[in-house]
């Protein structure tokens, strides 16, 4: 009996078919779950916005990679095995589980955002003086100091006004350069 090389090679691996079926079913189930979440989100958007939408947004959510496979139990990954009990929650409806998975997949983003907000709030509290503190700063100058400052100001103004009458403007020195020929004459005389 003669077989092609293709038949020979594929025939030797037929035993792997059941395992491959399991993998295929898991991946497709993940897709279906994403599609259902996308459809639910799409419906919620329609409810809130009140605008008719096509199913396109549900499809586009499928193509989003973020957190998409977080709940998919991989063949051997220990981290993802942790998710199995959550996925197999008996009696739990599909939607809450998906929402929990969705939020759980974003946990680091949410934690980071929260931390950033806390830091921003703390910084703004430290730098901005409160209204009470500002009022205290304003009332810290006493009336005596104010009066003294006012007097000093008046004195300076009086000095400025009186200055042109008392002082004569200094005349610039009369520097008339002698002609160049005179300079030469002087130099020859010296010699």
């Amino acid at each position, binding site marked *: *009996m*003669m*077989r*092609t*090389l*293709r*038949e*020979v*090679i*594929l025939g*030797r*691996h*037929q035993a*792997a*078919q059941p*395992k*491959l*079926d399991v*993998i*295929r079913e*898991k*991946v*497709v189930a*993940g*897709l*279906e779950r994403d*599609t259902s979440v*996308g459809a639910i989100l799409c419906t919620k958007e329609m409810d809130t916005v009140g605008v008719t939408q096509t199913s396109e947004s*549900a*499809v586009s959510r*499928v*193509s989003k*990679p973020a957190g*998409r*496979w977080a709940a*998919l139990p*991989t*063949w*051997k990954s220990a981290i993802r095995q942790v998710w199995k009990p959550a996925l197999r929650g008996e009696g739990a409806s599909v939607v809450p589980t998906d929402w929990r998975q969705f939020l759980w997949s974003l946990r680091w983003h949410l934690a980071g955002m929260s931390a950033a907000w806390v830091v921003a709030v703390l910084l703004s509290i430290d730098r901005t003086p409160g209204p009470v503190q500002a009022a205290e700063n304003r009332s810290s100058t006493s009336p005596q100091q104010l009066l003294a400052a006012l007097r000093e100001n008046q004195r300076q103004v009086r000095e400025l006004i009186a200055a042109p009458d008392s002082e004569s403007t200094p005349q610039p020195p009369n520097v008339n350069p002698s002609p160049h020929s005179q300079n030469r004459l002087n130099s020859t005389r010296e010699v």
Partner: protein
Amino acid sequence: MLVVAEPEQLPVPQARAGDPAAWDILFRRYQLPLYVYVFELVHDEQASLDIVQETFINATRHLGSLREDAKFGSWLFGIAHQKCLQRWRRQGREADALEEIAAAPVEAVGDPAELLVRAEQEAAVMRLLNQLPLAQRSVLLLHFVEDFPLEDIAAVTGTALGTVKSRLHYAKKALRRLLEEEA
């Protein structure tokens, strides 16, 4: 007997639209050939199953990068091939994986079905297949298992067309010699 669907009949447009049933058909069609290809390269059942799963997941994520629907098969094998390369790199076998061989006189490649194997020769053929260098084995598997055109094999393996031809030439020559000896 495994029935191979024509590329035109594959529901790639529906899969693009996110239809899980379409993905199921596509995966069902390619799961065994893909597994065989990966297994014959890495020789590890668990790792092969991992790579097949990762390939499926990547395919669902990045189908948008596929330009021609008719090339879905070679595109999928390309993903798997890259996964194998990553594994080899992790194992420090990159030199083996990227091994080049001297240019050979290129002959007509011929039909994959031309090479018929008798039942008593099967074990020997598989043994020889595993003795081939990785690069030759990869090309030979893609040629015989999926009957990809040489251009597609070049795209999957990320090598030049001439390199694919020479690798296939050497691999087939070795196989023929074995079959003649067995006869």
